């Protein structure tokens, strides 16, 4: 299949686009005012922090409409802010790139972001540290916008680190809970592993093309050797895996649910975790020349989409079910992105619709928790559809969207990915289909346990509907979940993204699209049916049954993701640290004296016992000298 890979070649920013920087600056200003202003801003701070991203949204909308009015070729613009490094031929600018891809992200981030800010006004109303919360949220929005607007990998990396920081701060926001602090730390560490890939990729790109700008790299990508492109692609994928919770760096996302629920909705569902998908799609000019890396993307995606779905089936914590589901849905997006030019646009399409319906459901879950005294165990829910009608109805829209009920947004977007996958490779397609079936199962289970079946409320809990300020965003997001599919009318989204990701040729042969849809719906229906049979028709025990079949145990334990991460990352680094400390403290000394001895009379005066004697240090110098000399001789005289 031959096609041209588009080159990033933006025009200069004029008209409304000269305000591009303002989109980032507004929320950044909010964060600065709230953090520096301290408690003087306690009263009005949250409101300001909500208004500023909304202004960014308005600005993004105006730009989007302006861009639509232009010719397809003129929709890419670049705003040069200032030259960061300019020395000889080394030139790194702080440039912003507005193109169809970033325009959609802008709308998603500022739009959903503003709604979640509004929701948080209600949700966090009683938290004493809410000013800080809103400051972090604004910081996050600014960083995320930097990520998607940057014109080079270094700017992208800046945003990448920024969202990581904000995510870290927000996961650990309820710092009085040790579990929250531990979760924040875990997210931080796992993301570092991903960032390692990112920074190595940037370095490699710089060494190869002497620049990290998208336009330079997209122009020179055809000239790179395939091995190098594959390495680059794999490094980028490692970064994407960390940020987007893809196997093997997935475990942190479930723990990240310790953060306040609006955070889960904004950062760990709608925007930040999809940054990996953005990275792969943005780097299409790399992946198109890196077939092996593309294959790995597909494998990672398929494993993750099943992995997340299976976790979702066994959890009783409503947020963790949704987290597993997020992982799985991002797997679908990655799959789309890994399919190359046939799937990029659909990956982004699914990313958008998922942003709507998952944010909707997370906020819905938050609303339920709000009414249930912050209980997250679905075994304590049941029959909430009466008590919380608005939450229920909006959540139902999200539910129908995610399982892919015909006509709802998720139906269109997921279908397209499954269809493309089937075209590419029937095994991959079959796995994607299976995933859709499991999605039908766990989401139906969640719906039944929460809104139907018997009341299993803990005594003293009186579920009630949430205030208006919280239900309004729910309604808006529910509407988007239903209607998100309009983006596909007449293939609009694929045409719109053409200038960025390239045009795929119409594929002929294989299974016709309508048949795929029918099969998908049938598979989902089976999943829903099984859920109805196993959960809906029997009373739900108020505590999780202990005696369960082994697959359930495995799924409850996140498929031993923690154990895997532990074995791969935590244990080896722990051993390394302990080994080095021991070597530094004891080994050299032990050889000489048979163990460290107290420094005697002097010890009392010392604040801490020095761990080494000069003689042991000298011995290490001597040993080092020997090693150095021998290494020199060995290398050269063999």
């Amino acid at each position, binding site marked *: 299949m031959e096609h041209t890979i588009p080159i990033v070649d933006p025009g200069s920013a004029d008209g409304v686009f000269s305000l591009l920087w303002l989109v980032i600056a507004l929320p950044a200003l909010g964060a600065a005012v709230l953090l520096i202003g301290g408690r003087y801003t306690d009263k009005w701070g949250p409101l300001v922090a909500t208004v500023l991203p909304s202004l960014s949204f308005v600005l993004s909308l105006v730009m989007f409409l302006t861009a639509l009015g232009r010719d397809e070729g003129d929709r890419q613009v670049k705003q040069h802010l200032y*030259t*960061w*490094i*300019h*020395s*000889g*031929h*080394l030139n790194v600018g702080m440039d912003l790139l507005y193109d169809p891809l970033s325009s959609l992200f802008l709308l998603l981030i500022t739009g959903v972001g503003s709604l979640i800010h509004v929701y948080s006004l209600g949700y966090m109303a009683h938290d004493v540290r809410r000013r800080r919360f809103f400051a972090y949220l604004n910081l996050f929005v600014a960083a995320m916008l930097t990520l998607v607007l940057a014109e080079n990998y*270094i700017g992208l*990396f*800046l945003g990448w*680190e920024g969202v990581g920081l904000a995510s870290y701060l927000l996961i*650990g926001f309820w*710092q009085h809970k040790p579990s929250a602090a531990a979760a924040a730390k875990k997210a*931080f*560490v796992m993301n*570092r*592993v991903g*960032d*390692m890939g990112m*920074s*190595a990729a*940037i*370095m*490699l790109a*710089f*060494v190869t093309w*002497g620049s990290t700008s998208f336009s330079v790299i997209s122009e020179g990508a055809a000239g790179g050797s395939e091995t190098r492109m594959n390495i680059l692609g794999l490094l980028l994928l490692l970064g994407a895996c960390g940020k987007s919770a893809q196997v093997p760096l997935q475990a942190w996302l479930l723990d990240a649910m310790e953060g306040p629920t609006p955070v889960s909705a904004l950062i760990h569902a709608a925007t930040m975790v999809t940054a990996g998908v953005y990275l792969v799609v943005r780097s299409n000019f790399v992946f198109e020349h890196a077939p092996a890396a593309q294959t790995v993307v597909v494998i990672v995606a398929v494993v993750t989409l099943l992995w997340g779905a299976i976790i979702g089936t066994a959890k009783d914590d409503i947020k963790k079910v949704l987290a597993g589901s997020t992982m799985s849905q991002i797997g679908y997006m990655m799959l789309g992105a890994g399919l190359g030019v046939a799937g990029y646009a659909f990956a982004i399409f699914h990313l958008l619709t998922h942003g709507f319906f998952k944010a909707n459901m997370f906020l819905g879950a938050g609303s339920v928790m709000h009414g249930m005294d912050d209980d997250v165990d679905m075994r304590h829910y049941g029959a909430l559809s009466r008590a919380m009608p608005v939450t229920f109805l909006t959540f139902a829209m999200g539910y129908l969207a995610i399982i892919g009920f015909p006509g709802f947004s998720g139906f269109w977007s997921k279908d397209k990915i499954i269809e493309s996958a089937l075209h590419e490779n029937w095994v991959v397609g079959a796995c994607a289909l299976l995933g859709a079936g499991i999605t039908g199962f766990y989401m139906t289970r969640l719906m039944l346990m929460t809104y139907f079946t018997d009341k299993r409320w803990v005594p003293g809990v009186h579920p009630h509907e949430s205030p208006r300020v919280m239900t309004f965003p729910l309604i808006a997001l529910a509407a988007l979940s239903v209607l998100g599919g309009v983006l596909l009318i007449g293939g609009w989204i694929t045409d719109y993204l053409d200038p960025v990701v390239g045009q795929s040729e119409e594929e002929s042969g294989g299974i016709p699209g309508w048949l795929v849809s029918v099969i998908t719906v049938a598979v989902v229906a089976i999943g829903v049916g099984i859920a109805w049979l196993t959960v809906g028709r029997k009373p739900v025990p108020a505590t999780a049954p202990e005696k369960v079949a082994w697959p359930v145990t495995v799924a409850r334990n996140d498929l031993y993701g923690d154990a895997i991460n532990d074995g791969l990352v935590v244990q080896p*680094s722990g051993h*390394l*640290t302990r080994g*080095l*400390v021991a070597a*530094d403290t004891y080994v050299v000394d032990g050889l000489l004296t048979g163990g460290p001895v107290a420094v005697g009379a*002097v010890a009392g*005066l*010392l*604040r*801490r016992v*020095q761990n*080494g004697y*000069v003689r*042991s*240090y*000298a011995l*290490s*110098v*001597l*040993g*080092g*000298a020997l*090693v*150095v*000399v021998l*290494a*020199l*001789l060995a*290398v*050269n*005289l063999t």
Partner: protein
Amino acid sequence: MEFTSPHIEYAQLWPLFVVFGVGCVGVLVEAFVPRRLRYLTQVGLTVVGLLVALGGTIGVGVGLKDLKGARGLVAGEGALAIDGPAVYLWGLVLVCAIAGVLLFAERRLESGVTVFAGQAAALPGTTAEREASSRGLEHTEVYPLLLFAVFGMMLFPAANDLIMLFVALEVLSLPLYLLSGLARRRRLLSQEAAMKYFLLGAFSSGFFLYGLALVYGYAGSMQFAGIAAAVQGGTANHSLLLIGVGMMSVGLLFKVGAVPFHAWTPDVYQGAPTAVTAFMSAATKIAAFGAFLRLFYVAFGADRWSWQPMMWIVAILTMVVGAVLAVVQTDVKRMLAYSSVSHSGFILTGLLGVQAAGDLGKGEITSLTAVLFYLTSYGLAIVGSFAVVSVVRDAGGETARFDAWTGLGRRAPLTAGVFAFFLLSMAGIPLTSGFIGKWAVFSVALSAGAWPVVIVAVAASIVAVFFYVRFILLMFFTDRASEGAAAVTVPSPLTSSVIAVTALATLVLGVVPGPVLDLVQDAGSFIR
């Protein structure tokens, strides 16, 4: 036998002589000026001397452009090379030295006296010591000592023959051994540190000297140019050269604190007075890496395929051990010491990026440029960090325990914020100078094909980010109403200005690094 007087290029060398001369005058001041006037006289003299030398260095640097042909000259009968990198490093050492003097002269933190022992000869815990401190004695000899060390540090990167290299090494080291042992508080710790530093320094100098003799035996010449010619000729016994190179590198690796020659670093950084640590952690590393670069590029450059594999191993070990051990520290000064060890590894990574001019792509930065920029950003950040450490104190004086620093961000947001900023720069977060430095050294190493080292370097810098950020969180986000918590003592303008200037410079280098990058690129390459 006929003696000819050597030809000395005073026009280019005078900044060196100014530093040395003012140091000598300082010794006379100790002998002839009454005690109560000494502090002011010494501080004034030293600052003026260093400023004059800095001005002179800038003048010499500008003057280099007017020289014909190669940008630089071999001076002092072949003993010294005055070229762009040497002059740039002089400037850098002098800037760190000026910061050092200001920190040395700080008197407000110890309520009216400096941080140096009242009478170094008095045994700790004796009547003599109590008397010395009650009389408010202080050692003003530290200023001439600093000047002598600076003199050595300026000679070191400019040394163009082996003898001068060794002399410079000793000249810079001896005053530092002394200075390390002069702390007013925790004197035993300080003296122990000085003793260790001295013994190990002497030990490694022995290796250095032996290696030097072997290299001379191989090349038959003391001058770098002569050695380079012999290496290129390659007729003599190669293993003689290899053993020589190995042993000389022991001496230099010891000075920069590379693994496995790093053991002294945490003890000395912790034990020495913090003002001394601030000065030497920056200036010694700058000078030693300057000498390192010149020796290995100019003298041994033609044989780099022989020594690079060894440097690969050392660089990898240094980064990993430094970063990992920094994670388990519970003392700020020791954490900074281990982080400085890992920074040595990063700089060594840059050193591995050396390539022949022909192999360099158009517009690529050279290994030298990268290392010089890294040294600049690291030097400023580390001086600033130790300056901050010196103002965080509890009832017992300066305190560097982690638990004393817990929650500092709430008690003293500005100080903790500045410290956090330095840490972020050392961690290499984008928009700070550390990021550009790291990026530069990694990419030169990568383009020279040292990708295994770069992978380890990236991994090590990620580990480093972890412990820096963890410490920032400890300062800002850990709640603790504890006893023994440290507070910030407001220092005199001397220390504050050092902190402010280094912080500002770190910020500027990160946001608009262009001018400095141009400057280091403009410094050109070593003359041969």
